[in-house]
């Protein structure tokens, strides 16, 4: 029994130490805030801290309290390794969506065009790897060329970007890239990694409700990544690859995303686009997509729907 207890302590202790040893970009941000005095009575809050759990029972087997604490810490890290739930994801997405409207000129009010973006977006989302998630699509009233995806399926595209597209296949390609960020849970993975490095044991709604500052810090980190720094290059390349696949599955010409990137590349240096600061080199992305397109030979006969796109854009 002692050997087993020692092995558990050693394994979880080493795991915990390993994560503690790295400085994380969310170290300070996600650190749980000191608990404020609660004026209102709560049925569960007080009890949660002191309620003995299964691990406390290890004391009966001669395991010291400090070792039990160490195991608990290890379990906390293991909890953070658990996927973030869909309800939490959608809540975070809502808050990021509010920020998106607030920072990018608000909603572009055109009911017909918004409906069109939703029809194209849903056609792609339906054949994505998360077809049961309710995706939402909106246009931002900004002349900057940009598009982004908040967790939970909130997809944004600026009117500036729409004006630079040539056809519906390009629009489907751009939306498919954003949908792929959500299906691959890129932002959630970034948050989870940050939480892990900061020893935050739970990224749940109950934990975030108890500590609004923590929720606010998570949203700050997401918006910083989305609007300023951008995601890791590998995640962008992966979103390109899945984006091409999803657009193809939806029956659009699979080169739509590549074709828009070519337009963007031709504007590099003088276009007003956040794409250049939040995404890897356009040239590299185009070349990587070109390598993939060979696998979609039968998609060359799929439509690009220039006329329909232009009829909605009022060109």
């Amino acid at each position, binding site marked *: 029994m002692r050997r087993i207890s020692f092995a558990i302590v050693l394994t979880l202790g080493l795991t915990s130490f390993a994560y503690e040893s790295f400085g994380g970009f969310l170290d300070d941000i996600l650190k749980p805030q000191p608990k404020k005095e609660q004026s209102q009575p709560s049925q569960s809050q007080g009890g949660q801290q002191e309620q003995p759990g299964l691990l406390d029972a290890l004391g009966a087997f001669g395991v010291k309290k400090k070792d039990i604490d160490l195991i608990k810490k290890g379990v906390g890290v293991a909890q953070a390794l658990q996927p973030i739930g869909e309800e939490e994801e959608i809540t975070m997405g809502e808050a990021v969506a509010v920020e998106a409207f607030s920072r990018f000129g608000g909603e572009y009010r055109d009911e017909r065009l918004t409906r069109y973006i939703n029809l194209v977006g849903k056609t792609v989302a339906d054949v994505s790897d998360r077809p049961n998630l309710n995706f939402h699509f909106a246009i931002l009233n900004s002349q900057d060329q940009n598009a982004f995806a908040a967790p939970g399926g909130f997809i944004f595209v600026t009117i500036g970007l729409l004006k630079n597209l040539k056809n519906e296949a390009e629009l489907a390609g751009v939306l498919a890239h954003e949908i792929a960020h959500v299906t691959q849970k890129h932002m959630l993975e970034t948050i989870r990694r940050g939480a892990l490095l900061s020893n935050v044991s739970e990224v749940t*709604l109950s934990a975030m409700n108890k500590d609004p500052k923590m929720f606010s810090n998570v949203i700050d980190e997401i918006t910083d990544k989305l609007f300023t720094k951008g995601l890791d290059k590998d995640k962008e390349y992966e979103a390109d690859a899945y984006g091409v696949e999803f657009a193809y599955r939806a029956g659009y010409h699979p080169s739509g995303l590549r074709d828009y990137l070519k337009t963007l590349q031709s504007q590099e240096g003088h276009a007003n686009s956040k794409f250049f600061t939040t995404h890897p080199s356009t040239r590299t992305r185009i070349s990587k997509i070109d390598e993939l397109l060979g696998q979609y030979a039968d998609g060359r006969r799929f439509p690009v729907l220039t006329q329909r796109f232009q009829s909605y854009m009022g060109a």
Partner: protein
Amino acid sequence: MKKIILKLSFIVLVLVIIPSLAQAETMYAKKSGVKVTAEKSPTSKVVGKLNTGDQVQVVKKAGRQYQVKLPNGKSGWVFKFKLSDKKPAGKSGGSSLAGLTGKTTIAARESRSGGSIRGLKETTEQYAQGKNIDPSYRRSVDAMEAFRVSDSELAQFQRAGGVGDYSGGGQ
């Protein structure tokens, strides 16, 4: 001698029948409302609809359409990208390890502000108020979530453009 022949026949039967059964490919509906049509054309008569996780046996593959057999014995055609070879998993929830530390994990469901179907979640509302974000932006998110496209409108849109279920020449 009879016994040997019988045994050999049984072995041959097992060797022939089992692999042929294993070849029947099982697939699952990725979402609810997946149409099963009588003919390969998605505009033909709808003979059934699948719910998320419903199992089908693939009988024939023809381009972007698969002919499938339903558990009730009926057969029809399905747009292949609405099917998956893996059974869709349930929704991911909170941590399952919480019990070990003796913590109580509250099920992650949150009410909408004002108790109505529409409206932002309470956490989001509190966040936006805390950051003094203009209420009009909160309303925009509310409208974004409330925006609906009906199944028939989507089908009509896809058919007109030859995309989605109607892609790859499926008319």
